[in-house]
């Protein structure tokens, strides 16, 4: 039997409804990565059909757009804490985001129609749309936590090569929500794999994150630095 889930608004985490145990942040990260990987297969298949003349450009665009829409809604709901937390502003944000994505997709389709892209370039560019799902989840997390009274957040570097902007923002420690650039808008753009950690108050170890990581890039305690 598949487990049922709760979303605990005080903590900002999913829980198993029966056991009451919290779902680890890392487990949700794995779920998000698997979500993107699964879609890669779907979209790669559409592109292979396009390149083999088994799918028209119009049908390819329609199929990619529909896949993106479903996947974007799924990533947002996961970040927001479930469908029951979805509100009209969420629908509006999702629609605006998708319109922007669809405009880029149309530019992409035009470039394909012009014959100016190689198959490798088509595949690489398609990947960017899927990578953007990471940012959709993170932005939904910001809205969810703001709704639930969290006032601070910190940027946690992901398991990836980091751009200077992410390094710089991660060193700021816990700051007021809204004072950092949204994930997906720094130098690494939609390839960003960082995430936010949220707090209702400035965490006691904020000084640690602001000072010791800046100085040593390690887990040395403050007492070792005196």
């Amino acid at each position, binding site marked *: 039997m598949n*487990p049922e*889930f709760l979303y605990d608004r005080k903590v900002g985490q999913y829980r198993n409804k029966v056991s009451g145990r919290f779902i680890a942040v890392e487990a949700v990260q794995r779920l998000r990565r698997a979500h993107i990987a699964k879609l890669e297969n779907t979209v790669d298949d559409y592109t292979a059909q396009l390149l083999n003349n088994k799918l028209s450009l119009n049908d390819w665009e329609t199929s990619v757009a529909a896949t993106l829409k479903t996947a974007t809604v799924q990533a947002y709901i996961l970040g927001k804490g479930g469908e029951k937390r979805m509100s009209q502003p969420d629908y509006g944000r999702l629609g605006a985001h998708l319109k922007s994505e669809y405009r880029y997709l149309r530019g992409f389709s035009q470039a*394909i*129609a*012009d*014959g100016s892209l190689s198959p490798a370039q088509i595949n690489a560019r398609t990947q960017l749309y899927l990578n953007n799902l990471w940012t959709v989840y993170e932005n939904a997390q910001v809205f969810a936590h703001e709704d639930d009274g969290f006032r601070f957040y910190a940027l946690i570097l992901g398991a990836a090569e980091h751009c200077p902007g992410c390094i710089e923002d991660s060193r700021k420690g816990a700051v007021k929500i809204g004072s950092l650039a949204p994930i997906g808008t720094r130098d690494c753009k939609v390839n960003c794999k960082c995430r936010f950690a949220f707090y209702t108050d400035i965490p006691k170890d904020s000084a640690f994150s602001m000072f010791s990581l800046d100085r040593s890039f390690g887990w040395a305690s403050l007492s070792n630095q005196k």
Partner: protein
Amino acid sequence: MKDEAKFAPPTQQELVAIGSLLEQADITEDDVKAAIGDWKNDPPIDGYQNILEAEPVGEP
């Protein structure tokens, strides 16, 4: 030399009007239900079929 796509480039006339594409970007409750149904039928990882239907608890 660039490895150009080995397919006949489709014509721009094949593409539907951009306005029509953008209309499809609007989100409705039906879209949300369809997205959840899609996830439940084929979740990225087994065991998380129901996570998008999580029940919110713990008033802040």
